[in-house]
C-alpha cells in the first residue's frame, strides 16, 4: 500500500520534471523568435560589422540553437542566470529582492483569502439554494468573468476615490510604520484576494456538494441530524482532499493575477520586473522570470495532484 503511494507520487514528480523540461524548451524557443540580431541591437546602429561579428562570437550566438539551449539550461542548473542586456547586471541580483516582495504579497493574500473563501464555500454548500447561496454565487460569477484589472479598477474606485480610505495607484517604497505597511499592501491584497477567492469558493462549494449526495450523508439526514451537523461532521471530513486540492489550484491563479496587480499598483515584484523587461526586450531577464513563474505554477499544480492522490484511495488503482 505504502510503496504503491510512493511510486504513484514519484511518477507524478517524474511527469512534473518532464513537463518542466518541455516548458523550459518552449520558453527558450519563444524568446529566441525575436526578430533582429541581438548583437546589433546591443551595439546600436553605428557599430561596425566587425564589432557585431565579434560580439556574436563572444556571446556564442553563432552556435546552433540547441547548443545554446543546453548551455542556458546548464547555467540555470548551476544558478548562473546570465546578465541583463539592459544594464549588464547579473539577473540573479536584479531578481533577488523582487522575488521576496512577490512571495510576500502572495503569502499575505493566501493567509487572508483562504479562510474567507473556505468559510464562504462551505456555508454556501450548507445552505445550498438559499438567498445567501445565490447572492454569493452571483458575486463569484461576476468576479470570475471580468478581467483582473477590472477588479483592481473597481477596488481603487471604491476604496480610494469614493471612500478615500486608501492611497490610489501608488506603492510607497519608504514605509515607516506598520500601519503604513498595512495601507500600502491593502489594495493589491484586496484585488488578488477577490480573484483567487472566487475560484476557491466555487471549487470548495462543488466539492462539499458532491459529498453531500453520498449515501452516508443521506443516512445522517434520516437520523435527524441538523444541516450544519450533517455538513460539518459527515460530509466535510471526506471533502477535505478535494478542498485542499482546490486551494492549491486556486493559488496558481495568483500567478496570472500578480502580473496585472503588480503593474497596476506599481508593486516592486518579479512580475513588474518582467513586464518592464518585456518593454525593453531584455531576454535573459524575461527567460528567468518566465521560468520562475512556470516553476511556481508547476509546483502548485503538482502539489494539488499529490494531495488528490493521498486523499482519494480511488485514484490509487
Amino acid at each position, binding site marked *: 500500500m505504502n510503496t504503491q503511494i510512493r511510486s504513484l507520487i514519484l511518477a507524478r514528480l517524474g511527469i512534473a520534471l*518532464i*513537463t518542466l523540461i*518541455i*516548458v523550459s524548451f*518552449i*520558453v527558450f524557443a*519563444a*524568446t*529566441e*523568435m*525575436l*526578430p533582429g540580431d541581438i548583437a546589433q541591437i546591443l551595439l546600436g546602429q553605428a557599430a561596425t560589422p566587425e564589432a557585431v561579428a565579434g560580439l556574436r562570437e563572444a556571446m556564442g550566438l553563432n552556435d546552433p540553437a540547441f547548443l545554446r539551449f543546453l548551455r542556458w539550461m546548464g547555467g540555470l542548473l548551476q544558478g548562473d542566470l546570465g546578465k541583463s542586456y539592459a544594464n549588464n547586471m547579473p539577473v540573479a541580483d536584479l531578481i533577488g529582492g523582487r522575488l521576496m516582495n512577490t512571495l510576500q504579497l502572495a503569502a499575505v493574500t493566501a493567509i487572508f483569502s483562504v479562510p474567507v473563501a473556505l468559510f464562504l464555500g462551505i456555508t454556501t454548500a450548507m445552505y445550498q439554494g438559499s438567498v445567501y447561496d445565490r447572492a454569493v454565487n452571483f458575486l463569484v*460569477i*461576476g468576479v*470570475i*468573468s*471580468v*478581467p*483582473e*484589472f*477590472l477588479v483592481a*479598477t*473597481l477596488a*481603487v*474606485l471604491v476604496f*480610494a*476615490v*469614493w471612500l478615500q480610505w486608501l492611497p*490610489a*495607484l501608488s506603492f510607497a517604497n519608504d514605509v515607516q510604520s506598520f500601519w503604513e505597511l498595512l495601507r500600502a499592501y491593502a489594495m493589491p491584497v484586496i484585488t488578488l484576494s477577490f480573484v483567487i477567492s472566487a475560484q476557491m469558493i466555487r471549487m470548495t462549494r462543488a466539492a462539499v456538494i458532491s459529498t453531500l449526495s453520498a449515501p452516508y450523508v443521506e443516512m445522517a439526514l434520516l437520523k435527524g441530524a441538523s444541516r450544519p451537523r450533517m455538513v460539518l461532521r459527515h460530509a466535510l471530513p471526506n471533502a477535505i482532499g478535494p478542498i485542499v486540492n482546490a486551494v492549491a489550484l486556486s493559488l*496558481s491563479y495568483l*500567478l*496570472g493575477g500578480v*502580473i*496585472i496587480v503588480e*503593474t*497596476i499598483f506599481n508593486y516592486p515584484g518579479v512580475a513588474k520586473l*518582467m*513586464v518592464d*523587461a*518585456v*518593454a525593453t*526586450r531584455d531576454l535573459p531577464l*524575461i527567460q528567468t522570470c*518566465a521560468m520562475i*513563474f*512556470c516553476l511556481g*505554477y*508547476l509546483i502548485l*499544480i503538482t502539489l494539488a495532484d499529490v494531495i488528490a492522490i493521498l486523499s482519494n484511495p480511488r485514484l490509487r488503482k
Partner: protein
Amino acid sequence: MAMSFPTPRRLGYRLNLVGMISAAVALTWAVIAVIAPWLTPYGPGEVVDFDYFGPISEQFWLGSDYLGRDMLSRILVGTRYTVGISLAAVLIACFTGVVLGMTAAVIGGWYDTILSRFLDALTSIPSKLFGLVVVAGIGSSIPVLIGVLAVIYTPGAYRFARALSVNINTMEYVTAARARGERTLYLIRHEILPNITGPVLADMGLRFVFIVLLLSGLSFLGLGVQPPNSDWGSLVRENIGALSFGAPAVIMPSIAIATLTISVNLLIDNLPVKIRDRSE
C-alpha cells in the same frame, strides 16, 4: 415544401429568462462589431472635445478620453477588435483542439500519449505569461495575437474533446463502424462529432470568455492591440489616468468588457441541460 429551420422550439429546447437576456446582450455586441462604423457619432480618432476626460453630456454620451476623443465612438469601434480577435482565436483553438482530441481518442496508443503529454506541458505555462513572452518575442500584431490566443487555449479544448470522445469511442455503434472497416475520418465525422457537438459548443462559449479576458489583460499591459487602433483593454489602459477622478472614460470600456463576458457566462450557465451535457 416549406423550409424548416432547426429553431429551439422545434428541437424541444427552451431557454429561461436569464439565458434569453444574456443571449440578447451577447448578440447585440456581435451586431455592433459588424456595423460599428455606421453607428459612431464621431470618427474614433477625431479630437472633438476641448476638455479631456469629459463627463457624460448630451453631446458626448459616454464622455471623452484623455485626448478629448468621443468615448462612445471609440468603444463601438473597439468592439470589432475585442469580439473579432477573440472569435477568430476561439474558432481556431476549438477546431484544432476538437479535431486533435477526437483523433487521439479514436487512434489511441502512442499518438494519444505523445499528444496528451505535449499539450499538458503547454497548459502548465500560465496563460498570461505565455502571451507576455511570445508577444515580447515576435512583437504584437493582430494575426500574432490571434495565433497566440489560439495556441494557449487549444490544449484545454483538446482535453475536453478527448475526454468526451473517449466515452463515445467505447459505444457499440463505434465498434460496429470499426468492424465495417470505416476509416478514422469517417469515425470522427459521423460517429463521434455528432455526439459531442452540444458540450463542445458550450465549452467554446466559456473558452471565448477566457480569451476575451486574456486579450483585454494583454492589451491592458500594452501588449495587445496597438495604437492607433484600440480594443476595450487598451481603452482602459489609455485612460487609466482618469481613475482617480472616476471619469467615464475608464469606467465605460470596463463595463463593456463586463457585460460581454458576464452575459456569455450566464448564457452558457443557463443553456438547457439537454444541450450542455448531452453525452452524460
